[in-house]
Structures are given as structure tokens and as C-alpha cells.
């Protein structure tokens, strides 16, 4: 009796669960079928094409130099990210300092290291020893001003052979770290700028010094904005450590895998091994990133709200 004409709507009448026939999507089944066939063909090839040579790959994938290469890759990732973040903080603070000298230095640095490809940087740093075969620690331009003052000798206190200081690993690490510093500087600058100006003013009004305000108030709040892209940078860096092979850093993962492949004429299996190693490590990192981001997205807010629900109210 609850037709459109009836005066009183009868509540509860239409509360029965809806059991309508859903729309069918036959094209989805067709697409899934095609993809399934393609996947089967691919797997078939994986197992029948002799170029894959799985037994050889498995034999060598976990050999001692390769596992050492994995550690080198991991250590290079961690070290270059740590140096890169510290450098990035310094560069970002310089950039926002308002001091024209610091701003220019920071800008030029970022311009250079963001503009040159990492591969080129890696090779370039591998060849820095050409520039200076020995590195002297002392007063600058001594060869000009010492004779001018009528002094003999030089103002160099000690010297290092550049080839011992700039071993492949150090040179490669330097290239990656310095490059990362430029990218982190941009990320951290955006984070610092995202913090409300009122925060700085309130801190200033309390008598806090500039450096205290940066360390205690601005940086911690910038972290929310900085952390997610830093996770991406870490994963990208892990992959970019493969560039160390071109410095060359002979103990590095990709170099080792390629070396084994070249030596035994089994290039393709070792390239597959490289893919698998990088995939495995980045998968672990991505999982970690997922949890860190989930934590930071509710940072202070979500956790705090849980606390209030559980306690204060």
C-alpha cells in the first residue's frame, strides 16, 4: 500500500536486502584467457630455452663473490643514503638561510649534481686520480705566494697517493653520495618549507636559537613530508649501485655477476640472476617502506587519537 499516491510512507517495508542480478563482464573473461595463454608461453620458454641455463644460474647466484657483492651493494646503499641525507640537510638549510653566499653555493651544487647523469658521475669519479695523482694537505697556492715572499720550499704538510684514497669503492661511493645529496636537498627543502611559519615565530618568541629551532621544531615536523620520498630514494639508490660496476668497483654485485657470465660464456643466466637479486632486495625495502609510511601517515595524529580514545576521555 505504499504506492506513490499514499500519504503515509510505511517505514520498514523496503528494508529487505537487495538481491539484484549483477552486471556481467564477459570481456574480462576473454582478456584473462588471453593473458593466461601468453603467461603459459612465457613460462614454457623460461624452462625450454637453453639460454636460461637455470642450473648454472643457481650454482653461481649464491657463490661466495656474489654474496660478497650483495653486501657491498647494501653497504653502498646505506652509506650513500646516510651521507646523502646529512648533505641534503646541510644544503637545504644553506639554501633557506638567506645568506647570499650559502644560497649560491647550495644552488650551484644542486644544479651540477642534478644535471649530470649518475653513470657519468660514477665514471668521472673513477678517473679523478688522473686530476691529482697525489693529494697534498697544506696552505693553498703556496707555489705562488712562497716565492713571492722570498721563502724556500713549500707549505705542504703531508701527502697521500690519490690512488689509495680514491680506490674504486671510495670514488664510486663519493659519486653516489654527492649526487644523492643534491636530490635529498630538494626533498628536505620542500619538507622544511611545508612547516608553518608560526612554528618558527612561536619558538623565536620563546627565546630559542636558530639552530635549536631547526633541530627541535622545524626538522621533526618536516620529517612527515620528507620520509616517504626518502624511501623512494633509497630504493632508487639500491638499483643505482649497479653503476658502481662502471667506476669500476670490482667487488660490487653487478660487476661480479657480469664477470662470471663473461668468463663462462653464460651471460644471460647471470643477467637474470642480477634481476632476481635486485628484485629480492627492493621487495624487502618496499615492504619496509610500506610500514614506515603507514606509521608516518597517522603520525602523532592517528596514534594520538588512539591514545585519547583509550585513555584521556
Amino acid at each position, binding site marked *: 500500500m505504499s504506492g506513490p499516491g499514499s500519504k503515509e510512507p510505511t517505514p520498514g517495508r523496503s528494508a529487505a536486502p537487495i538481491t539484484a542480478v549483477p552486471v556481467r563482464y564477459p570481456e574480462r573473461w576473454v582478456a584473462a584467457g588471453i593473458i593466461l595463454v601468453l603467461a603459459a608461453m612465457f613460462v614454457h620458454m623460461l624452462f625450454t630455452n637453453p639460454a636460461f641455463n637455470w642450473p648454472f644460474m643457481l650454482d653461481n647466484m649464491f657463490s661466495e663473490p656474489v654474496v660478497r657483492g650483495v653486501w657491498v651493494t647494501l653497504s653502498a646503499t646505506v652509506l650513500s643514503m646516510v651521507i646523502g641525507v646529512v648533505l641534503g640537510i646541510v644544503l637545504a638549510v644553506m639554501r633557506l638561510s638567506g645568506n647570499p653566499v650559502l644560497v649560491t653555493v647550495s644552488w650551484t651544487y644542486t644544479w651540477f649534481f642534478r644535471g649530470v647523469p649518475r653513470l657519468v658521475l660514477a665514471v668521472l669519479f673513477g678517473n679523478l686520480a688522473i686530476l691529482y695523482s697525489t693529494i697534498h694537505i697544506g696552505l693553498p697556492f703556496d707555489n705562488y705566494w712562497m716565492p713571492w715572499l722570498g721563502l724556500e720550499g713549500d707549505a705542504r704538510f703531508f701527502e697521500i697517493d690519490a690512488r689509495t684514497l680514491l680506490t674504486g669503492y671510495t670514488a664510486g661511493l663519493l659519486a653516489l653520495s654527492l649526487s644523492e645529496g643534491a636530490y635529498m636537498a630538494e626533498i628536505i627543502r620542500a619538507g622544511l618549507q611545508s612547516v*608553518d611559519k*608560526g*612554528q618558527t*615565530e*612561536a*619558538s*623565536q*618568541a*620563546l*627565546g*630559542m*636559537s*636558530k639552530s*635549536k629551532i631547526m633541530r*627541535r*621544531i622545524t626538522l*621533526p*615536523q618536516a620529517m612527515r613530508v620528507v620520509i616517504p620520498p626518502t624511501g623512494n630514494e633509497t630504493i632508487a639508490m639500491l638499483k643505482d649501485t649497479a653503476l658502481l660496476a662502471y667506476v669500476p668497483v670490482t667487488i660490487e654485485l653487478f660487476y661480479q655477476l657480469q664477470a662470471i657470465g663473461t668468463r663462462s660464456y653464460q651471460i644471460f643466466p647471470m643477467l637474470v640472476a642480477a634481476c632476481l637479486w635486485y628484485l629480492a632486495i627492493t621487495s624487502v625495502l618496499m615492504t619496509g617502506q610500506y610500514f614506515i609510511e603507514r606509521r608516518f601517515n597517522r603520525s*602523532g*595524529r592517528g596514534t*594520538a*587519537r588512539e*591514545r*585519547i580514545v583509550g*585513555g*584521556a576521555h
Partner: protein
Amino acid sequence: MAEKTRDHGEQEAAPETAEGAAAPGDALVVAENVHKSFGRLEVLKGIDLQVRRGEVMCIVGPSGSGKSTFLRCVNHLEKLTAGRLWVNGELMGYRQKRGRLYELRDSEIAAQRSDIGMVFQRFNLFPHLTVLGNIVEAPVQVKRVPRARATERAMELLERVGLPDKANAYPEQLSGGQQQRVAIARALAMEPSLMLFDEPTSALDPELVGEVLDVMQDLAGGGMTMVVVTHEMGFAREVGDSLVFMDDGVVVESGSPAEVLSNPRHERTQAFLSKVL
């Protein structure tokens, strides 16, 4: 020009431009011909004011008249373009030596500011710290008070502003009125000799204004020297010792609140009051 708050400034003449002229005895804040420009925009056009110790001065005036800018000049968040400003006998932001002004270092300015509390319209609590963390931050970091003692003192202050059970809450879990009371406690934790309030209740829902004004009234009753920019005429009348009407970067009129509110002498004051009363 405008009358100064001279109702109690008996013996001393305003410090003339004499070298190293110190602030007069019982005035905590002395502003002398304070000018401030942002680029070509002159926001303060010569402010002369004195705030005695223990005085509650309310500043009213239309939006954009330079009230906030003046407050920010008092603790040197803004640099004056001309004039002088003393707080507690100290020239803010500069050292005067042999007829020249030397800018103070950041650390020296920070030290001057630590004696002046400021409360903002938008609270500006630190969102990443708890209420307790907000209050102990400056005493621990700036004054090097041991954390345990700072915490004890913070709990006393929270008691005083009526929020003893919110010590471990985060700012965003609090209502606006509660946040502003925490902000007052945070400023008081530095044991300042002067408190500046910049429209402390303007961002609050009407029903929350009272709780903040109560805390401020309590503070005034305890003898705190306060400069309060506000639109709360009731507060100005009941709690204020003096009332300053600012418009277009100048002090148009000042005197006792009752006098200015009920018997404004200047046209601009009358026009403004007719709109807000």
C-alpha cells in the same frame, strides 16, 4: 600627536635622544617614536607608548592598523625602521655605544626574547610534542632547567590554566580554548616579566572565549604586565588598566578604559567603537 599613557608616568620625561638613554624607572616597556615599514608601506608611523610594571594595557583598533606589527616589534620579531624600544631597561635588538647602534647577535636577541612571553591568535603550539612537551621545551632547551623540575613546574602551570589532565594529549586533540590555555602556560613557563597577547580569542568559537579570558584575568590579578591586542571590550574595560586606540599606524587616543570607552574624544575612536560596542 596622540596622548601617551601618562596617567602614572610622573617624574620622568620621555627619554630624549640622549646617548644610551635608559628606560625610565617604573616603565617596563618604552616605545619611542616607533616606525615600521614593509617596503614602501609604512605600517607604524611613530608610536609612543609606555607600559608600567604590573599594568594591563589593551590595544584596540581596526584590522590592518598595525597592532600586530607593534607587538611583534616589542619582542623584535620585526625590526624597527626608526625609533627605539626598551623592555626592562634594555634596548631591544641593539646595543648603543658611543652614539652608534650595533645590531645584537641572534643569541643576544634570543636572550632578550626569553623574558617576553607571546600568545598568538592561531596558538602555534608544536604539533609533534605533547602538551607537557610544549611547555617544558623552552625551559629545558633555553634555560637549561633540569627536565624533572621543568615538568613539575609545567604541571603547576597546567593546574593554573585548568588543564591538569591534558598533560599527555597532543595539541590537535584539544579544543581551541584548551590549546590557547596551553599556549599561555607555555609562555609562562619561561617566567617572563612581560606577556604579549595578539588577539588571543579571535580564532575561538564564542563559547570558548570565556575560558581563555578567565585565565588572562587571573594572570592580570597576579600582577603580570600584559599588552593585549583584543576586540573583547568587556575584558578591556574590566581587566585593563589602560586602553590604546590605534588606527592607520598611529596611537589616536589612550587613557583609562572607562574614559576611552564611554567618552571617546576623537572622531575615529567614536566611529570604531560604535561598530564594535
